[in-house]
């Protein structure tokens, strides 16, 4: 069975794009995704600012595997599978901390931060041929980082991370270059979940079309706080296929941004400081790029499951599938290191973040509601088989069109078919479909 054509219909002749809903419900599809996608593609783990000092560690579940993401005693960032090589017990049982040694609570085998087995209690009971060197902690096949963002790949043959990120690097840089001294993850994470297939969260995170409806109360809030002065902003951006399954919506800032678009939400006191931030960006990066960084929303998908949305603030959102109808989310705030703890600048950023984003925000809960309602709708999948993602196929895709979502699905279907990434869409996808259908028997 082919995913392309049979389950993801990409009809460029007629400007139609449909996704079969079994892709969101089938346990078989879910298992194949684990084997095909999550075992072979680069998956985001964490940012190195989360583990600043030697011995710092955090625990993550990535692609279903338990990982320790840590900085070893010598300062090198590493990952180990969080399972004792002796009998399998979870080695690190805290979510975060600092250590020189990981001691298993089961039989007290202990490993240093490089993963080397250093203690086996009752060592004399093992035969002389027992080789401790075979029992060091196991590292994933590949780790890689780009500007502090660390990824894992469970496939030793995978393409290197920079090649994989490809054209997305331009957009990652537009985020990372907003800081003069690098970006950091702010402490405190949004850990929540959705009773819906993970791919619906991918769609939703890069979907401009839903904003006026799902987020009507947010738009009202922005208006009430004197913002949203650029009425057409959300509709005037564009969706872009970046290749390798990555995609982005780029649109003029529709409301306040800590870097660097002032609206009354931030208060009159902050106006000068935010304008100075813009001026410094322009100094560092030139007029055009500086303004683009400061004044533009970016909703970026790194295929398959990392979202970096640079909107009212910057969120890094990791989508971890847990079942066909459920996924977990980990989301963090990314901030320039120079926005110090306790500073007005960081406070503004976090306040702005929380207006929209997160499980207690004024917008994200309604996204969760939308996704869960879709998943419940899929219970009628035998009778109502298809979801439609055709918006903007016959035009230059705007930010409220669905090109960036189709990009995900095209890559998904092609990868699931074992065919690698499809050719990047550059231009109008279905130009012929811009003409009205020719009715039978009518000569034009």
């Amino acid at each position, binding site marked *: 069975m082919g995913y392309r054509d049979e389950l993801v219909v990409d009809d460029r002749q007629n400007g139609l794009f449909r996704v079969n809903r079994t892709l969101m419900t089938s346990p078989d599809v879910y298992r194949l995704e684990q084997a095909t996608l999550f075992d072979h593609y680069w998956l985001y783990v964490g940012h190195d600012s989360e583990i600043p000092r030697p011995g710092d560690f955090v625990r993550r579940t990535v692609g279903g595997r338990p990982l320790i993401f840590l900085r070893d005693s010598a300062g090198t960032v590493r990952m180990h599978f969080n399972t004792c090589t002796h009998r399998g017990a979870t080695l690190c049982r805290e*979510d*975060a901390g600092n250590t020189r040694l990981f001691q298993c609570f089961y039989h007290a085998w202990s490993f240093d931060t490089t993963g080397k087995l250093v203690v086996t209690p009752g060592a004399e009971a093992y035969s002389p041929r027992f080789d401790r060197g075979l029992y060091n902690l196991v590292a994933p096949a590949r780790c890689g980082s780009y500007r502090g963002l660390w990824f894992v790949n469970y496939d030793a043959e995978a393409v290197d991370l920079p090649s994989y990120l490809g054209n997305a690097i331009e957009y990652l840089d537009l985020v990372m270059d907003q800081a003069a001294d690098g970006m950091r993850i*702010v*402490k*405190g*994470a*949004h*850990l*929540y*979940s*959705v*009773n819906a297939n993970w791919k619906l969260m991918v769609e939703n995170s890069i979907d401009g079309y839903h904003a006026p409806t*799902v987020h*009507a*109360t947010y738009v*009202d*809030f922005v208006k*009430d*706080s004197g913002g949203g002065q650029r009425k057409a902003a959300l509709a005037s951006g564009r969706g872009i296929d970046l290749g390798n399954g990555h995609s982005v919506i780029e649109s003029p800032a529709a409301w306040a941004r800590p870097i660097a678009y002032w609206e009354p939400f931030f208060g009159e006191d902050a106006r000068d400081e935010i304008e100075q931030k813009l001026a410094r960006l322009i100094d560092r990066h030139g007029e055009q790029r500086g303004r683009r960084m400061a004044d533009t929303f970016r909703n970026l998908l790194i295929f398959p499951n990392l979202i970096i949305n640079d909107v009212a603030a910057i969120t890094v959102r990791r989508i971890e599938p847990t079942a066909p109808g459920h996924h*977990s989310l980990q989301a*963090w*705030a990314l901030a320039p290191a120079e926005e110090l*703890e*306790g500073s007005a600048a*960081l*406070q503004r950023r*976090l*306040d702005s*973040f*929380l*207006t929209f984003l*997160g*499980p*207690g925000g*004024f917008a*994200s*809960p*309604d996204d*969760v*509601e*939308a996704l*869960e309602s879709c998943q419940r709708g899929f219970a009628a999948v035998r009778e109502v088989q298809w979801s439609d993602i055709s918006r903007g196929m016959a035009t230059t895709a705007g930010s409220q069109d669905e090109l960036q979502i189709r990009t995900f699905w095209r890559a998904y279907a092609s990868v699931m078919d074992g065919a690698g990434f499809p050719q990047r869409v550059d231009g109008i996808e279905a130009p012929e479909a811009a003409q009205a259908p020719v009715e039978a028997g009518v000569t034009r």
Partner: protein
Amino acid sequence: MTVAPAADRLARHALRLDVEEFLYAEAALLDAWRLDDWFALFTADARYEVPSTDLPSGEPATALMLISDTHAMIAARVKRLNSRKAHREFPWSRTRRIIGNVRILAESGEEAEATANFAVYRSRRDVSVYMGQYRYRLVRDGDTFKIRFRRAELDLETLDSHGTLSIIL
């Protein structure tokens, strides 16, 4: 351990009873979704906070919170939840709050600092329980109080079994 004079003990008990009564009345407003009445309980400089589950000690100036509302943001939250377009809470979920272990930590002038344990049951399709501890700073207002500071620290590692935090805790 010295025993406080009876009059002091009585005054302390009376304060705790007043605080308990206030918290029960507040919980009843929230369970009844009388959000405008609830909002009227706050002082103009009030704050409402819920720290992230992985950092219950988190402060809004240094950490990403789940909720960090000024008075204006509380007003916006109430307005939103009163709307039919707050989709996660339309129709409203049903909630029931159990509050206990009310303790007065400090009292100075017009202000009392109190903690209380809570379990907030929310039902909408599924039932979930948000449990944790409240921290309040309450200001005397005639024979009742106004809320100057209200913080709900969750005893949850994640919101994995809750999805979101769309109600007011």
